[in-house]
């Protein structure tokens, strides 16, 4: 008999701010997610290669190349269904949101965000994972 256990979402958080990483990790682990992190896009590529990740939360301004460029790299390997990418930024303009879509992003979350806002985003993109 197989047990139909709900899958634990694995979320990759990419941010060069130690506090932002810690904040996201606390929120998501408290709510049952597995969290992997990277503070630059080179490390993020490695993390995404060795882990089966259900969702990427990526800061827009992240060294050494920005989040939009990084997303384009990801899209050459995974499509939007295989690996959803949500951009996170302090910027909240329609232009930035449009740029994120053009870069292959699935969503956009503005900083600062509440615990509930973050978790709703994760739920939205990992519900069927």
């Amino acid at each position, binding site marked *: 008999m197989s047990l139909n256990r709900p899958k634990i979402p694995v979320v990759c958080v990419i941010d060069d*701010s130690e*506090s932002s990483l810690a904040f996201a990790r*606390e929120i998501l682990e*408290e709510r049952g997610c597995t969290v992997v992190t990277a503070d630059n896009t080179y490390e993020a590529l490695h993390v995404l290669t060795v882990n089966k990740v259900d969702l990427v939360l990526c800061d827009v*301004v992240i060294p050494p190349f920005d989040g939009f460029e990084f997303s384009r790299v990801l899209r050459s390997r995974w499509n939007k269904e295989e690996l959803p990418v949500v951009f996170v930024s*302090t*910027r909240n303009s329609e232009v930035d949101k449009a740029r994120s879509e053009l870069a292959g992003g699935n969503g956009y979350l503005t900083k600062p965000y*509440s*615990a509930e806002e973050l978790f709703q985003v994760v739920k939205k993109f990992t519900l069927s994972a």
Partner: protein
Amino acid sequence: MMKDSSLGDKKYLLLEFNLGGKMLLTPMADIAAVMRDVSHLVGVPGAKPWMLGCKKVDGEMVPVIDSEMFATGGQSRTLGNTSISILVVPTEEFGLIGFGVEHIGRLIQLSDLSEGGDVEVPVWLAPTLLCSGALSTTTYPIIDLTKLPLKGIKDVQA
């Protein structure tokens, strides 16, 4: 503000920092960006002394202020050394503002917050005091920097 910082039932994630010679906490869910030990700000020629300069945050230039000097009109006791840390906070009226602070510490999870409590903050920070939170034997003031009276912040020129 505080309810947005909730982690779950009665849990809050708060960022520890020093300002005005006091160790303080602020809800992390209110902070747009945290910048530690910034050594260079873009100067604003002819600006008032409380305008420390500007810093690029996600590609946008954000003014960074010495909140003590801004609020009191006097000298800052704490900032003005070689590097500062910055908390970037969105305000309804003025957009993103960077508040220079002396030191940024840990992210702390608290479950018991008290209205008021036995905490003291410098007079100029009194409007920002939300409540207090106890961590082992220490009780910290919890503040919201956007509650500082920011009227006049656009009047930058000295």
